[in-house]
């Protein structure tokens, strides 16, 4: 490898809404160092540089020792939500200027006649048509009228666009006209950022492809500017390693590729937790793991099967009605199959119109926050309930850096929930805690069912500030008997930065009946996709070992939706049509209970992921010891037990002093600075050699 082989430090930087998190990994020792500073929204690179300078004070010279910096950012998604992207023009086929605005025409809330819809990113006056037409089989019906195309481009420039999107009808089948437009744009307006649908995502369905291409064009100038600025500032402070950007699909990529395909880094931030989960799944050889990351506003979760998270081809951004499926802009890019719901510590509890308790999806956020923050919040939240139930310690929240006001929490729950419902304070607090668990469980079960998983056999991995507090309750509701809490669970997603492979996904529509398939031709397309993937990976000289994993989307002929079928390695000609058929039937049966081997199949899309090997990460491990560590037991306090329906004494353990081999029974509470684990009566906790807490609920659920 290169000379940098001697440098052994990697830094993960995650720019979030409130905090920018830093995780420094020393590869030799496996030690992790955590640092946080406030995000600087006007120029997020300020916080990145500032945080690194702060770390440098504690570890002088670390910047120059850095081998890699891996960066996750909410820049792109925020630009779309806040509508701060470029003034973008769209060039499209004559007759189809309004595809972007018409969308799919479905009303996402059938009985809500006032439901709002998002405005298109490119208004009608900036959408221009050109005379050209390609048919569904790729043949040319009307050649591109060059002079008119020039006028269209010049027309957009006259209207002062800063970015141009091109999406022509049926271009997935033949991109020749889009390519001609590309050369014309480069000739007429050298330097203007442009996005061509065939390069962005060449797949059938014109609205989704147009929407994706337009979104890419909309965020391209600002992404380019940000990444250029970040690179040069890092250089200024002495960084000489490689900079990688986290993709929504779970891989990492070069700065150049991220700048070219900014729409691919849209869910860059939350993805890290999933990657970490994949790593744990493999490390502990867990066939089905359900990762669950509960923060202040939302809970995100994802099912990981055999160490691999699902990747879905579509994503919705900027929902007009939060959490209402269908109310956002639809884009077609590979995104880790994350489910996000409005359930977090800040979720507000109130009495609904039906006279029943409702919790979330509205959140008290950081300002004013829960009642117990003492910042003027008067609506009770999940955190208030957790405090009243004794799960949180008012004096040790966030490692004691923030004092909580339990009286304010009691008052809020009493006044807003207990009195109106005619129930006790404790019943109300438990109700809030239990309700949010139920909300998460309902969403989790649907998500797991959609992936063909079984909630009863999953291991639940809990992250985030509120995750471990609710993990055991959630696990019981979905029927899972094992919970694992990784070290630094409060910022536990950070490890994901270091275990993500360098990878890039490519795809092409290729619609053909399996009985008429030309396997050699398909192999040829995969080969072409592989070449494109390697270019996007931006390999350094001497870097090798790229693997290409292929899959195809297939369906019964006439069926409306496709099923993704991963392919084993080797020529398709060797696998044969019968082999493909068998692979499909196995997956279809797992997902939907039964398959129909006599009903003919067709292929719709070909997909390929090009990736470099995952860097192995050696977590620091210690010998399992049989000694007990009395200093880990801090004492005990009263907390609510569902089983006893009352407050009972819980042993309180300090996670920082627990060592491998320690074990204890519930009822217990394990505290660390960013989070708290609640262990119900009857549950058993063990600390493994890596410092993970394993909580076994078999006895609790056997009742």
């Amino acid at each position, binding site marked *: 490898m290169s000379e940098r082989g001697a440098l052994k430090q990697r830094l993960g930087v995650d720019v979030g809404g409130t905090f920018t998190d830093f995780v420094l990994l020393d590869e030799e020792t496996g030690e992790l160092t955590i640092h946080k500073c406030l995000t600087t929204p006007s120029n997020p690179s300020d916080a990145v540089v500032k945080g690194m300078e702060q770390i440098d004070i504690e570890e002088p010279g670390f910047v120059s020792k850095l081998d890699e910096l891996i960066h996750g950012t909410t820049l792109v998604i925020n630009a779309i939500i806040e509508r701060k992207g470029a003034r973008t023009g769209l060039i499209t086929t*004559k*007759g*189809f200027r*309004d*595809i972007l*605005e*018409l969308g*799919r*025409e*479905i*009303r*996402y809330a*059938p*009985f809500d*006649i*006032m439901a*709002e819809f998002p405005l298109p990113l490119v*208004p*009608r*006056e900036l959408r221009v048509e050109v005379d050209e037409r390609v*048919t*569904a089989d790729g043949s040319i*019906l009307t050649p591109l009228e060059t002079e008119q195309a020039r006028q269209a481009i010049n027309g957009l420039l006259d209207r002062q666009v800063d970015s141009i999107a091109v999406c022509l009808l*049926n271009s*997935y089948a033949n991109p020749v006209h889009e390519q001609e437009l590309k050369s014309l744009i480069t000739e007429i307006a050298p330097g203007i950022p442009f996005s061509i649908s065939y390069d962005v995502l060449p797949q*059938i*369905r*014109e609205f*989704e492809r147009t929407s994706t291409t337009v979104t890419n064009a909309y965020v391209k100038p600002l992404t380019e500017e940000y990444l250029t600025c970040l690179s040069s500032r890092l250089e200024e402070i002495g960084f000489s390693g490689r900079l990688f950007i986290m993709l929504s699909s779970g891989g990492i990529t070069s700065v150049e590729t991220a700048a070219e395909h900014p729409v691919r880094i849209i869910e860059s931030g939350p993805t890290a937790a999933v990657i970490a989960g994949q790593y744990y799944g493999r490390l502990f050889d867990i066939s089905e793991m359900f990762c669950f990351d509960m923060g202040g506003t939302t809970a995100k979760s994802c099912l990981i099967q055999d160490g691999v998270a699902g990747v879905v081809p579509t994503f919705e951004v900027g929902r007009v009605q939060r959490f209402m499926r269908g109310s956002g802009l639809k884009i077609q890019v590979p995104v880790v199959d994350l489910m996000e719901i409005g359930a977090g510590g800040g979720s507000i509890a109130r009495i*609904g*119109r*039906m*006279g*029943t*308790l*409702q919790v979330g999806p509205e959140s008290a956020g950081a300002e004013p926050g829960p009642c117990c923050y003492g910042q003027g919040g008067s609506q009770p939240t999940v955190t208030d309930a957790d405090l009243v139930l004794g799960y949180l310690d008012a004096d040790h929240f966030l490692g004691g850096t923030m004092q909580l006001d339990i009286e304010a929490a009691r008052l809020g729950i009493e006044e807003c929930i207990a009195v109106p*419902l005619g*129930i006790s304070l404790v*019943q109300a607090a438990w*109700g809030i805690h*239990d*309700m949010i668990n*139920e*909300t998460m469980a*309902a969403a989790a*079960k*649907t998500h797991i*069912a*959609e992936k063909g998983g079984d909630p009863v056999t999953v291991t639940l991995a809990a992250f985030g500030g509120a995750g471990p507090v609710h993990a055991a309750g959630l696990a019981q509701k979905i029927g899972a008997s094992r919970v694992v809490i990784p070290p630094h669970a409060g910022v536990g997603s950070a490890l994901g930065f270091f275990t993500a492979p360098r990878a890039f996904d490519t795809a092409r529509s290729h*619609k053909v009946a399996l009985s008429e398939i030309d396997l050699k031709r398909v192999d040829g397309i995969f080969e072409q996709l592989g070449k494109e993937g390697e270019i996007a990976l931006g390999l350094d000289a001497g870097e090798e070992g790229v693997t290409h994993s292929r899959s195809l989307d297939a369906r*019964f002929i*006439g*069926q*409306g*939706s496709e099923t993704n079928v991963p392919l084993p390695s080797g020529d398709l000609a060797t696998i044969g049509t019968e082999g493909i058929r068998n692979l499909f039937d196995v997956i279809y049966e797992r*997902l*939907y*209970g*039964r398959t*129909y081997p006599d009903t003919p199949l067709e292929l719709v899309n070909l997909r390929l992921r090009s990736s470099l090997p995952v860097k192995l990460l050696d977590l620091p491990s210690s010998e399992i010891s049989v000694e007990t560590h009395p200093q880990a037991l801090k004492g005990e306090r009263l907390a609510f037990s569902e089983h006893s329906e009352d407050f009972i004494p819980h042993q309180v353990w300090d996670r920082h002093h627990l060592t491998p081999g320690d074990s204890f029974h519930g009822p217990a509470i394990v505290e660390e600075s960013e989070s708290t684990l609640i262990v119900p009566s009857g549950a058993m906790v063990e600390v493994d050699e890596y410092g993970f807490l394993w909580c076994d609920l078999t006895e609790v659920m056997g009742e």
Partner: protein
Amino acid sequence: MSERFDPITLEILWRRLISIVDEADVTVARTAFSSLLRDAHDYTCMFTDRQGRELAQGTLATPGQSGAMALGIKSIVEKFVTSELQPGDVFITNDPWALAGHLNDVCVLSPIFHHEQLVGFTACVFHHSDIGGRVASDNRDVFEEGLFIPLVKLYAGGKLNEEVLDMIRWNVRTPDEIVGDIRSQTAANHVCAIQVCKLLSDYKLDSLDDLADEIIERTEASMRASITELADGIYTSSVEIEQRPEEPNLTIAASIEVSGDEITVDLSGSSAEVRWGGNVVYNFTYAYVFMALKSMFDPEVPNNHGSAAPIRLIAPEGSVVNCHFPAAVAARMQIGHFLTEVVYRALSPALPDRVLAASGGTPATMNVFYGKDHVGVPWHTVIIRGGGMGASQGEDGGHCFIFPANGANTPVEILESETPLHIECRQLLPDSGGAGKQRGGLGRRVVFRVPEGESALSGPVNMGLQSGRFQLPPEGLNGGCSGGLAHFSVNNEAGDPYGLTQLQPGDVVTMDAAGGGGFGNPLDRELELVAADLERGYISSTRASEDYGVVLDSEGIIDAAGSISERRSRRKAQKAKRRGA
């Protein structure tokens, strides 16, 4: 009220019921064959307690189907001899009078057993793209419209009745698709039943009865409380619906009596049955009356048997809104969708902030195309479309939705790859949105071309159409103007929207959807909004000056001062005219 559930457990169980149906709903979307189901979501899943009272329906349910099922399943269940039902029984029917009003809507219904006790029923209705028969709106009776499946057992005690499936196979044009979709219905019911049983086990309940009582009573109380807020009185209105040129237009008359916490909608005075497929069965009429009232009074609370309890419907027997067997019903949406509009119009003076002006997507438009491709292989497709939404007091109407029904369009690239048709354009129609303080949504033009020359097909392409608004446009409210009319032409000559049209190679079909009605006086529309509409090309400069009273300078820019004085004098003229009248 039952004391069995505290308000917290009740909410948890209630949510669980809805998530169960949504899980069944997802199963359909992932297993269905027809693009009408998968892409357009023309189906509804629901389940009931053992008395057939609806407990929960899918979040994206189609209002016509869900409302009709709520009544239909209950009356089917009431006729069952429950001691004869056994686990593994699955029933199938498409009786338009029993359920959703036309033969294409096929219902699959299964009892749910828990510990060998009957606890409820799960049902789903899918719109199948073909059910045989002659595909057109001008059929004279239901016998011409396709296969009629009375309530029969598809599975008896878990054993498939192959004869029933065979009977269906031999009566439809695309048997594999229909049978595939029926399998998907069975799977959806199966998922629902398993989850209901799991809920009962989890909460150690023997039946759904107490839970059903509690949920239904609370839902009913909420709807009643909301109705009480409206002053008692009788609110009346009517809508006129166009017919073939040689026949008189139809009327739907509505007299809505609000009395305390109840509403009675009386449709007496509505026209008699028609001699084409537009007749509406009672259940379907009820569904769209309910859609209107639910959307106005209690849109957030999930639908169940209780939501409907305070609403009474009187629809005269033998009228077009309560037709008798064997009236032709295939195109029932062409009339049925207007029921929501008539309710909004009647109640608009009392509740102007909760209604919409008339929509161009009322009725929905449906095209059926079928024929043989250039090598003689049969093909068949159904596409549905809407038009501009009516404006409301606070918002412009959205462009192009199906309303009050719901559904999605089929992508042009999917249509072109699955059928031989060529689509020349799909675009908004400028000036089609009704002028108003809030503008109606724009309609849309779609142009289809039948291939000719080398790629010409074997034989003609048959096209059936269900639509409306060719003569009477969607009207505005509170001084808003009407939206633009719909148009249908073949090679630029007006086509017949009722019959089956045979298309030849090279034929070009143009379908313009109507725009939505405006809300409020167009002279009150903010100048910046008129300017934006002009810049986007939603309106022309002619309409800007004629409808909105704005004055444009030589560059086409709005002259604010000139516009204000022009609008002032026009308002005076309007007032004078009103006084004169």
